[in-house]
């Protein structure tokens, strides 16, 4: 199919690795991430005529994939409780990955983990991150600042200087006076 000039096969082949990597870092197990990717891209193909014309077809895929993962995770949590199953221990991170960063990301609150992964692993712009998660851009920005700060504190390192948010007279100004400094 080639409406709007984007070929589905090419787009899928280009995007699928980054999508599944992002889902894995956000916290999906490999099987869940793979299934979510297949489901989301399958749905995109199902309605490719419309998805291809969106400003961010990939953003749409992230949205669907995250919903799939959340749904599975919710169901799994409930079932393990109902069956009085012991919750599974956390997975050992893959050896080639920065284990301290992996643990620090895993320890973030879910919203902050999602924004920081979508922003830096999936490499979406902040506006796209907000759209994927269905939150306001302000909420996405706030979550990003908080996530970076937590990671910096956990790892004892610095964040790159993010550009300050545009001044908004309706809110109090914030300054990053609490940014951790490198030892």
């Amino acid at each position, binding site marked *: 199919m080639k409406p709007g000039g984007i070929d589905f096969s090419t787009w*899928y*082949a280009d995007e699928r*690795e980054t999508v599944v*990597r*992002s889902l*894995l*870092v956000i916290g999906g*197990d490999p*099987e869940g*991430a*793979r*299934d979510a990717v*297949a*489901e989301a*891209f*399958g*749905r995109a*193909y*199902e*309605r490719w005529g*419309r998805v291809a014309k*969106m400003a961010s077809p990939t953003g*749409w895929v992230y*949205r*669907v994939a*995250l*919903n799939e993962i959340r749904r*599975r*995770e*919710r169901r*799994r*949590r*409930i079932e393990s*409780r*109902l069956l009085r199953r012991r*919750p*599974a*221990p*956390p*997975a050992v991170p*893959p050896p080639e*990955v*920065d284990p301290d*960063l992996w643990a620090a*990301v*895993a*320890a973030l609150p*879910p*919203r902050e*983990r999602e924004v*920081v992964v979508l922003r*830096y*692993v999936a490499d979406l712009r902040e506006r796209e991150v907000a*759209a994927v998660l*269905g939150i306001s851009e302000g909420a996405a920005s706030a979550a990003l600042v908080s996530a*970076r700060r937590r*990671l910096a504190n956990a790892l004892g*390192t*610095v964040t*790159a200087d993010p550009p300050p948010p545009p001044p908004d007279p309706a809110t109090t100004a914030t300054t990053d006076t609490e940014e951790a400094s490198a030892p």
Partner: protein
Amino acid sequence: MTSIEDRLRHLGATVATPPLPGPANVMRRGRQRRHRRRALGLAAAAVVATGSGAAVYSLRQGDPVSVRTAEPDPTQPEPEAPATGPRGTVEGEPNLRVVPDVVGLTVADARTAIESLGLAVSARSGSDAGEVVGQDPAAGEALHVGRSVTLDVADLDRPRNADGAVIRGQLLDGRGWTVGSSAAHGLCVTLGPSDLGCDDIGPVIPPGADPATPRKGADATGYAHPTTEASALAYAFLPAGAETVELVHDDGRTVTDGLVVEPTERFWAMPIEPGDNPETAVYRDAAGGEVARFPIDG
């Protein structure tokens, strides 16, 4: 010293990924979904509406269709591999728990999830069969063992279709929706998991009105979640004698592709996307003859 941002980018690049299906496989999966919908014999009308547009969905009455509910496929095997996120506890803080995301669950299921962590539940209203539409604290926040999570519960009865199934469906972006009714709200559409329910969307049928009464024009159509989302829900009530709705542009283009959801009485709904704005809703009977047509009001 490498910045957090650079380390995150590198983290993504080094994660080992499972083998992924090839394009042909994914495309086949998408085609199968489409064929499954069409095989049910549904004339679905896909509408794309902006925040100010109204859109219409329809389904042939009597079809016991249940497509894409908000719940996972029960035939799917439980995944074996554990997730890598935190499992309800906060590292280094034995008395803190991470509040789970329970919006969209029944109160009973939410209680199970929350109480199993050693937290308490305080439900503001509704019975245990009601649906959680809001929670405080939010998912992901830390809470001391023994403290309460307060739940907002949708005090809704659930209209059911001819097969007795609760009316629910799924938006294109995966969010679930249901139809509820109450003395306070009438018949309304609620989106989950993060939306607030009837108060947020507004009543579809005012309290006390009869859902089976033929409705016209803007009263018959509407949409839920009027923001620039990737998908929203459009709904319609069919006038007497009509069995399908199709959406027509002024230049004659007809929008008929789309998803289908469970019908009840004369209420139809289906997920939509922003962008395309058909001008007219045409209601047709079983033979395809035109029963009525109304402009879709913005």
